[in-house]
């Protein structure tokens, strides 16, 4: 199987996965949901029936189900998402873009930080294998890995926001005029510090443990012994020889980790009142604002599927066996 065929197959699978999940996403909300028609929730008895009809037609709920399905698919495919189930209905797309930016900013920064910290700690522990330093680093890594993220965040908020009052636990910026871009940026960074620090603290352990175990494995390979024997520096051996050897696996795990990173954003954003898509998702879910929930699920899935696809492409370049067409 050549790389090209492999890639085509993966793209087809990715689209199949998206299609299946989006269909389920549609069925859950439009067919099997306890409340499918938000106009049923309008409690006012004197709410005019023609007004309800107008709302239904605006939301497209008066059309047959298959047509609704097609409209739903079209809306998602064009990234316009339709309108919210609110009165008056709001377009979803503009809010989605700034919320997505909010979410991705903390997720990206914290993920990158935890990967950098984790991988360096892991490499360090593996190179000091069997010593007290190794046990110490490994223990810290295991602690970070085993502690629930939301518990670290609760402790952080309890300690730094409620007891000490150092970091804010609410929002993105303070409600005051900002004197310029730098001022605004610093204010945002100050508010983002809590989520980013806690996500990093909770996240690096996994990478540290994974890298350490892989590295320990790689360091027993013959080519490492060769490199050591020819007198290469320890740094060179660790990073140029050993780390390169395990890069494909590390990349795999990074991408495989994508869904859980995204899922973690829901609780993080709720705890820190960070107006990203995770918080929006919770609010929309509780309020029965189905188009928003569907749109966010779609974005989550899209990011995951695209991540897996990118992984395959990167993997192809990193792993020569795939590039030259050897069956895995």
């Amino acid at each position, binding site marked *: 199987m050549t790389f090209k065929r492999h890639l085509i197959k993966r793209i087809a699978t990715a689209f199949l*996965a998206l299609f299946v999940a989006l269909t389920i996403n549609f069925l*859950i909300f439009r067919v099997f949901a306890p409340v499918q028609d938000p106009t049923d929730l309008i409690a006012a008895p004197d709410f005019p029936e023609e007004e309800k009809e107008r709302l239904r037609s605006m939301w497209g709920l008066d059309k047959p189900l298959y047509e609704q399905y097609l409209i739903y698919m079209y809306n998602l495919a064009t990234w316009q998402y339709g309108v919210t189930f609110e009165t008056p209905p709001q377009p979803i797309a503009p809010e989605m873009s700034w919320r997505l930016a909010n979410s991705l900013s903390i997720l990206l920064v914290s993920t990158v930080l935890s990967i950098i910290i984790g991988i360096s700690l892991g490499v360090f522990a593996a190179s000091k294998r069997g010593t007290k330093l190794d046990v110490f680093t490994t223990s810290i890594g295991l602690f970070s890995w085993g502690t*629930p993220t939301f518990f670290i965040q*609760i402790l952080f908020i309890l300690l730094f926001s409620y007891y000490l009052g150092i970091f804010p636990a609410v929002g993105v910026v303070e409600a005051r005029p900002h004197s310029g871009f730098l001022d605004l940026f610093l204010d945002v960074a100050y508010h983002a510090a809590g989520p980013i620090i806690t996500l990093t603290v909770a996240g690096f352990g996994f990478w540290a443990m994974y890298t350490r175990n892989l590295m320990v494995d790689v360091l027993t390979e013959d080519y490492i012994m060769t490199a050591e024997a020819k007198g290469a520096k320890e740094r060179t051996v660790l990073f140029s020889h050993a780390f390169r050897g395990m890069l494909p696996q590390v990349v795999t795990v990074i991408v495989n980790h994508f869904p859980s990173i995204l899922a973690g954003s*829901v609780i993080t954003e709720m705890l820190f009142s960070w107006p990203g898509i995770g918080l929006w998702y919770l609010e929309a879910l509780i309020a029965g604002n189905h188009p928003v929930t569907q749109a966010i699920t779609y974005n*989550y*899935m899209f990011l995951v599927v695209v991540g*897996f696809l990118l992984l395959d492409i990167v993997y192809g370049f990193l792993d020569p066996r795939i590039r030259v067409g050897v069956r895995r």
Partner: protein
Amino acid sequence: MSIFSEEKRIIYVRKIKGFWDEYRRNRIGISGLALLAFFVIIAVFGPYIAPYPATRPPIVASKFVMPEWMSIFPQYEDLPRTMELSVSKMETVQTSPLVQVFYGENITLSYKGKTLGDVGVVQLTLNFTYPYKSPNEFKFSLSYTAENISKTIYNFKVTLIDANGAEWELLDRTNTMNVTFGRLTISSTSASFRRKIAANMTVNPAKVLFANKGNYSLSLGITFQPISENAQGTITIKDGTLTIYGSLHGVLGTDFFGHDVLSKILYGAQMSIIVGILTAALSTSLAVVFGTIAGYFGGMVDEVIMRIVDVILCVPLFVILLVLSHNYELNIYIIMFLLSFFWWPGPSRTIRSKILSLKESAFIESAKAAGGTKFYIIRRHLIPNILPLAMAALVLFVPAGILMEASLSFLGFGDPNVLTWGRTLSDARATGAFSALAWWYVVPPGLAITFLCLSFVFVGHALDSIVNPRLRRRK
């Protein structure tokens, strides 16, 4: 038992012993095992050692009060503990010969009057020492039944004499003879009582009444006022108590409702552990079954299973669980099943590729040549060889399951009928334990989840370094 199986048994025992010898040397592994044993003991015996029941727990102190051992700090030393004073311990101080007082399980007062002027008066008094700072709240409650009441009205009066000798009337109720049972209650938090005791609404009556340490006396006066000749009546007083709610309680303080937090934590252990173990067991079994089938049979079967795996892996599990839980109110077992359904694809991939490589190996070829059926080969040769992989997955899935359930419950999307640590945390957040700075309510369930997960992570780490030969220590 044949000689053959006896031999096999010895080999197995030796294998397990060797394994244990190696495990014992791993310090992280041993601490993980010790932690795990601790949690299992709590899960099994928690309901028996918990000081209070799980359903309809009693109010044991004020809301959000600190643990009792905080009194080692001087500033908390004198904070009140919960005091319960029972009316049945009251002494009869002053009684007119017209009323007879009988002490038994309940206190019975029997009155008989001849003329219109025969007013029957009884005063029951309880002297007690109040040794703490003033409390936040107290409650008095008493229920009574009146029998054979005729031609008299009767009156209850509750008074408190405080440490300075001032007398406070807490309650005054007069009943006609038609009333045959009733309940007297005083709550220091009620608005009417506040109006009665304090000049303005910002003053806490409990602080006014129990302002100082010292000797107090609580009395219950009962007066029979005849309205005609030959009046009579019997009153029985049941379970009357004055409860002064403490500001320190137990090992882990109280929650928003004044319930014991320690009991909640002890009851939560069981389900928190079961969720993890059942989810891990089910998802690992599914992974072994489907991984083996896909790997061994190959072809169309393999293709179909692996495409299903690809699709499931793309589904954002957590958000889907939130939706399902919100729409259909899932119970805990369905949540476990869903978790397993979404998790088996991960390890099934590695198991499949292991089976693929095993299939080509010589010993499988010879087993086939010797006439082993497919099922026999899978059972005897393939499954034992993928057990280490399955075990690694199992040990990883347990903490993952615990965490997932805790996260769901924490957001309020768990099973509302099951008490887990995640739900305890969620309750804490929802009732404002953060702004009350009630760390004794927030930290213990979180720590419990953390250490439960850590115990499995530690055990998994130790197993990994034993089973995986390349991770073994170089000698």
